[in-house]
Structure formats: structure tokens, C-alpha cells
């Protein structure tokens, strides 16, 4: 099993993701350039990661340009064939823009960029991440200006009914309420997956919480989940 990490021109969490996977979780990682279009070395056991950053500067809607990159065409095929895909922060935005995940990420309700530790908890054990995390309350950093998850009521209801909500923002004791929501996301949604449960998107950055040197390893459970079979 190996990970592929896509590097867009404005990715800035690509190296962090590679450090986390290689150094902290001892995983094999292949960097992928956004202009390339070869994913032949990846099987559906593998996982493609879309890291955080500002893929094309985010002057247009976040992720709106990245979805058109040659590599993204391949990622869409890869996902549709059942391959695992994880998008973090800007990666989540790209997955929504490319239609691999429903909904959209809007500007934070307070209209400011926000970077701080938040707490999240898994919603259910109907997906590989939820099973790995269990009922732990995880402390994971967020860093985004446009992280307010939004979808129409019908979509939210479907996500809920299908157990596609992977993470919600909560407080240290696991309570989900408006004060524990860093950006005004609908129903405190921090991460979701697709109906097939092989494509995941989340705003918090698990790769920033995998190292003892940073005094927080809560992100390991999330990333390790992708080494398991679906």
C-alpha cells in the first residue's frame, strides 16, 4: 500500500503531508506533479492525497482551477474505480469543486482566516476513518479562510441518512454546539465522505498532528486509517 501526494503549484502542505506519512507513519509516498497524468503505479489499495494550500492562489473560488489540472482528471477516474482519495483543507475544496464530494466550502462566517487547534469527533463507524478513530475526541488544527461547509437541505439530509458525515467540530468534552464551530459550517460538519466511502474530505489538518515533537499525535489515527482496506 502506498500514498500519492499531489503537488499543485500553490500547495503548501504537500511537504507536511509527506513528512507525516513517511517520517511519522513510515508509509511509502510518491509525489505527483499536477501537470502529469500517470497514475498507473497506483492500485485501489492505494490512497491519493490532495494536500492543503492555495493550489492556484485561490483568487477565484478555492479549488475551482485545480479541478481542471491534468492530474485531477486521473484522480477522478481513480476514485470512480474505487481508489481511496483524501482531500485536506484546499484538497477538500478541490474534491467538492470536482464533484467527487457534494457541497461547497464558503468563506468563514466571521470572514477571517482562522488557524488554531479545534476538536473533532467521528460521527459513525460506517467508514474506514470512523472505525479507526472510534469515539476518541481528536485535537486537530484548522487553518483556512474558506472552510464553512455548506450544501442544500436535501444533500445534508442524504449525507446524514447515508452516514457520510465523517467528522463534526466539537468541544474538548465532545459536545457539538455553536461555540465549538470555528467557521459556521452547517451542522458543525468538519469532514465528509462520498456514498461509496472511498473519497474523504476534511478541513482540519491531520498531518499537523502526527509528531511527538509538536506535542500532538491525534492525527495519526486518521491518516493510518487509509492504510487499511476499505
Amino acid at each position, binding site marked *: 500500500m502506498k500514498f500519492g501526494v499531489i503537488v499543485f*503549484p*500553490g500547495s*503548501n*502542505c504537500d*511537504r*507536511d503531508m509527506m*513528512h*507525516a506519512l513517511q517520517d511519522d507513519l513510515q508509509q511509502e509516498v510518491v509525489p505527483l506533479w499536477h*501537470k502529469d497524468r500517470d497514475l498507473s503505479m497506483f492500485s485501489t489499495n492505494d490512497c491519493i492525497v490532495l494536500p*492543503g*494550500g*492555495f493550489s*492556484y*492562489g*485561490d*483568487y477565484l473560488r478555492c479549488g475551482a482551477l485545480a479541478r481542471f489540472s491534468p492530474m485531477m482528471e486521473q484522480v477522478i477516474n481513480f476514485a470512480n474505480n474505487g481508489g481511496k482519495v483524501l482531500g485536506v483543507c484546499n484538497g477538500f475544496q478541490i474534491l467538492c469543486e470536482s464533484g467527487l464530494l457534494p457541497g461547497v466550502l464558503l468563506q468563514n462566517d466571521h470572514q*477571517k*482566516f*482562522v*488557524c*488554531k*487547534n479545534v476538536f473533532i469527533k467521528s460521527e459513525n463507524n460506517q467508514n474506514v476513518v470512523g472505525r479507526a478513530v472510534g469515539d476518541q475526541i481528536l485535537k486537530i*488544527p484548522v*487553518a483556512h*479562510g474558506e472552510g464553512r461547509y455548506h450544501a442544500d437541505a436535501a444533500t445534508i439530509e442524504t449525507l446524514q441518512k447515508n452516514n457520510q458525515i465523517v467528522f463534526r467540530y466539537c468541544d474538548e468534552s465532545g459536545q457539538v454546539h455553536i461555540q465549538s464551530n470555528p467557521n459556521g459550517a452547517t451542522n458543525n460538519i468538519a469532514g465528509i465522505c462520498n456514498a461509496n466511502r472511498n473519497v474523504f474530505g476534511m478541513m482540519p*489538518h491531520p*498531518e*499537523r498532528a502526527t*509528531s511527538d*515533537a*509538536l*506535542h*500532538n499525535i491525534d492525527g495519526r489515527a486518521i491518516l493510518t486509517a487509509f492504510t487499511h482496506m476499505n
Partner: protein
Amino acid sequence: MQATLDQAIKLGLREEEFEKIKEVLGRTPNFTETAMYSVMWSEHCSYKNSIKWLKTLPRDGEKLLVKAGEENAGLVDIGDGWGCVFKIESHNHPSAIEPFQGAATGVGGIHRDIFTMGARPIASLNSLRFGKLDNPKTKWLLKGVVKGIGHYGNCFGVPTVGGEIYFENCYQTNPLVNAMSVGVVEVNKGLTVSATSHGAGNPVFIVGAATGKDGIGGASFASADISEDSINDLPAVQVGDPFEEKKLLEACLELIKTGVVIGMQDMGAAGITCSTSEMSAKGEHGMIIHLDKVPTRQSNMKPWEMLLSESQERMLVVVEKGKEAEMQAIFDKWDIHCVQIGEVTKDQNLKYYMDGELVADVPAESMVLGGGAPVYDREYTEPKYFQEIAKFNAESIIVPSDLKEVAYSLVQLPTIASKRWVYNQYDSMVGTGNTHTNAPSDAPVVRVHGTKKALAVTTDCNSRYVFADPYKGGMIAVAEAARNIVCSGGTPVAITNCLNFGNPYNPEVYYQFVNAIKGMGEACLKFDTPVTGGNVSFYNQSEDGPVYPTPTIGMVGVLESLTDKMTMNFKKPGDLIYVVGLNRNDINCSEYLHHIKNVTHSPAPYFDLEEEAAVQETILRLIKLKLIFSAHDISEGGLFVTLLESAMAGGLGFNISTDANIRKDAFLFGEAQSRVVVSVNPDLHALFEAEMKNVPFAKLGTINYNQDIVVDGESWGFLNDWKEAYDTAIEKQLAN
């Protein structure tokens, strides 16, 4: 067409400088040439009014791989084949006019200084000064500056890990925005690059963004007093594109690895003019430049506009002849302009052509600092306000009866209160190197990936102290920076400084400048932290007068391993709290005296360089011996604020007693220097006290098992209530 004296003066040159240009050239310069000299000989580029004194600062040290002023930034050896490149720079005037772009491009500019030398930036800091926070304009400036810093840094992908913000009336019209960048480079792999140019026939490239009319004359704009009319200088403010710079960073670092680069310099102040002349002068060669080849953002740009443009995200690169294609491939990969605009010549003149016509022809060396740029010796006299300071008598201040209320007001002063409204808007964690988030220390500690090492980084300057006593205040700025590094477990290595002062032609301002330099220099010698470079920003004044003299110190320290790190939070209930250093009967120049008692003029607080060095040596030893569990230095707000900050970070209250020999307000809120609050396991207290050979110390009390704060047996309430007041003070003011 020959330029006239009138034109030269309008461009900011002095009459004798225009004469000097004629002498250099042996003819009257044309307008384009005059414009070029006007920016190169502006204070911002030439340091003409400061260089004499800058040269007196200690600039040597065994760890310095590049001497001050030799390159775009300092380079120090951090061991194991790695070097650290760091620098601080001001963007005060642009930020005063257009806070968002002014601050954003300040951040972009300082990062370019770092990666133009081959280093990857891993941390940025900023030191900000504003007027009173209840003023609507201050709120606008603060919001804009913070958004600008966040906009650029967050997208560029370098964490903003620390800094400082002060609010004082003197910065009302002229805020200060100083940005610092710290990068690392593998020096033993030869990955550093010099800003030089040599080898006749080697191609000269411009890479990065297209050249526009933004920022024309920015360096001259930075070298004049600011006024209400400065808004008319808006085109002198540049516009930043952090996405372009992120690509430029990656492309440049990739290019450097190929080994084809002769020299590289970023385009900041004075754009093409500055980069071509400084690189050529350094390499003792000349250049032929074809301006018509420069990619432009708008049509019909005149030669002088292209030469002076300060459009951001550009670099001048000289590579070995024959390697052009190798270079082009890398920049194509990143979709960045990469255009050959000329070549290096043996003849040491710079010849600029436009559509085949020679538009300027100047000797490179005549333009630059250390070459033909003028050097002035300015007069200085002791400021008159010193008399008012001398009149201050602490006895006239009655010790307040309700010290708890005073403390409560103090922790909500914007200079002291939590800056979380600010720093939560900065990505402080990208790069997964910043250990500060989950384990705060006096100076943020950032690990260096690929090594066991970490860097402790800080910016410091209490400008009120410098105003009260420029010499002592200059020493304190360096000492406090070193103290913060030491309290974090680091060994101070070197400094960069950003010298923000008023108009140098004012002898009282120049007195402040000269004496602050003397103080800084002496402290740098004591702590063995040479000056690696930095920036001088004069003309920080408005109709209200000059700002406080503000020589901001950016310091870097090294930790051989993260296990050497010390944090500031109280760890364990029952641990003993000590102060290392002597508590004194001193309220001088404190936040308490200035903002609670409204005394604007008082002497600088107590400071003794030898005492400071002994305290720092002791703290570092205690950390190595693992005899202390927390360390936090006493600074603005005094002992009480220090205790509260350690308590808030640890979630534990404290119980302390004051000293009957010291007035209570001085004990709790005084800012006498060279003191550090530490906590000690009771079982180790004898060992701890045995190490206090060279320094005075006192036991203050203990860490509580609960959130109670107790002073002299009296309850001062619960930690969470204090924390709420401290955390939300700035947010509440901004919401109004």
C-alpha cells in the same frame, strides 16, 4: 535630454548630490539616470545617514558565514552543515497609506531576501506598532495590516510564529510594520547563493512577475516624512501576489540545485536599478540590459518607469552561459516568466537600452552603498524632553489601595492583553515545525526538518525605554531578545535589527539613533550576538512629531535538540515559584506607570548588563540540569502579568507573597529588567538554590492545586476569569 536641478530635487536628491552625479559621470545626467541615482542614493538604499554608525556595531563572529551588509541577509552557521538566513525589514510608510498591501508586500519582500540566498523560509515574525486602539483609524490600520500579513504568509506557506504589538499615541499617524523571515539552507552542499554578477558574456535574466507601474519611487517615498498628503503617493505602494512568490520560491530553489547560478538578487526597493547595480558592483563587472525585453504589465512604459518599478515577486538571475535552456525548463515547469534581458560585461558600466537606444549609462559602483553613494555625518544634541524625564519622582505616585483592580485593568491594556485576535488569523502551523502551539515558550521554537536541531526566534523592543534612555533602551532590547531565547532553552547566536526612527536631520532624533546603536552594540558584544544585517527606517514622523525610537531586534538562537527546550507554562500543583534576579523598588517606564498612572515621562527601568548576563547564564544552566520546569521572563506589566501568563498556559493558579521591603506596585507591576520567573519541584529546591551562586533570587510562593489566585493570603479570584478578561480585551475593543 539633460536633467535639471529642479527635476533632481523633485526626485528627492539634494543639490550637492546632483553635483556629485555630474562629477561621477563627467557630464550632466539625463532624466532617467537622475531618477536612478535618486532612488539608489535615497536613505532606504544607501544608508547615507546611518552607515557611519552602523559600522560601529559588532559584525564579526565565528558563526557568521556572511558579514553584515555583504548579502541580502545574514547567514549563520547552526552546525551539522546547516545555515540559518534571517533578516528583518520595515514596511512602515506603505502600511500607513494602504495597510493591507503595505503589510502584505512587506512580508513578501523579506521572504525574497531569504530565498534569494538559497534558504527555504521556515518561520516569520512581525513587530507592529500602532496608535491608541480606541481610535477608529487604528482599528482600520490594525485590521488591514493583520489581514495583509495573513494573506501573504498563509498563501506563501510559511508559518507566522511570533512577534509583538504595542499601542502608543506616538504611532497614531505613522504605524510601524516590521517583518522578519528565518530560513534554513544546507551550506555544506553548496546551496547558498550570492548576490553577485561576473563572467563577461553570462546571460542576465529577469524571472517572476511582469513589471508594472506599481511602487515607482517607493524607496524615495520611504525616505520622507509622512503626512496627510501621503495618500497621494498611493502608486508608490506595491501590490503583492503570494501565489506568484510561492512558485518563484520553488523554482529558484530548484534552479540553485542545478549549480548553474552565478548570482541572484531579489527586486525590492528600486527594482531593476538596484539589483543590476548591486550585483554588478559586487562582482566588479558591468551589464548591458535591454529594457524592451522586460515583460511588462502595461504598454508604453517609459525606461525610467521600468528601472524604478517596485513590482513584487521578481528576481534578477545571472547564470553560466550555455545553461539557459536548463534554467528555462525549470521556470516553464512552474509557469513563471523567465526572460534574458541582457548580459554581463567586463566594462563596469551599466548600459540600459530601449529598442536599441542607449537610455542610461552609469558606473555600477557609483550607485551603491560602499561605493559612490554619499555618506553623511549628522549632528546630534541631547533631546530637551530628557529634562522632563529627570524630574520624575516615584515618591509622588501613591501606591494604590486596590492592587487587584489595577492588575485587572493592566491585563486588559491592548499592549499586554492576549493577541489571539491577531495570531489566529495567521497560519502558525504550516510546515509542521512550530512547537509553540502546543508547548509555548518565551521565544517560539521551530524545529529544522532533516536535523535534530531547532531554532528559537524572537523580536523585541520596548521603545518607551529607548525614548527614556536611548543607550540603556538599546541594550535592553538586545538583552530582552536574548533572555527570551535563553528562557526557551536556546543559545543566542546573532541578531538582525530594524531601526525605526524619526527624521535624521533632526539632531534630537539623531541623538536617539546614535545612542541606541551604542547601547545595542555593547549588549551584542556581551551576549556574543553579532549583527548580521537589517534595515534602517528613518522619517517615521508626522505633524505630531517623531515616533518613539524603535530599534526592533530580531534574534535567532539554536537548540541542539528539542529536548533542550524549556516552556513557560506552570506544570505541577505544589511546585515552588521563584524569581531568578532581583525584585526592585522600581516603577519607572512601566505599563502601569504610563497607562494606569498616566505618567508619560519617566526614566528607563533598572538595567545592568553584567547582572543580565549572569541571570541568563544561570537560566541556561538550570535548563540543562533540568532543575526548573518552567521559565518566563518579566517584561511589560511586571511580575504579576508574568505569573498570570505562566498560570494561564498551565491552567493552574498560584499563591504568592510580596516583599515588605518593596512598594507593592513596584513588586507586582514594576519592570526592572533581568528577572525570570521559574517553577521548581519541591524535592529539587535545595539543588536549585545551590546553583544560584552568581545571582540573587527569591521564593515567591507555590503553584496551586486549583485555579485560585492568591496574593498575600488574599483571594484575587479565579484564573479563568482573568483569562477571559485577558483573552477578549482586544476583541471587545475592535467590536466597538
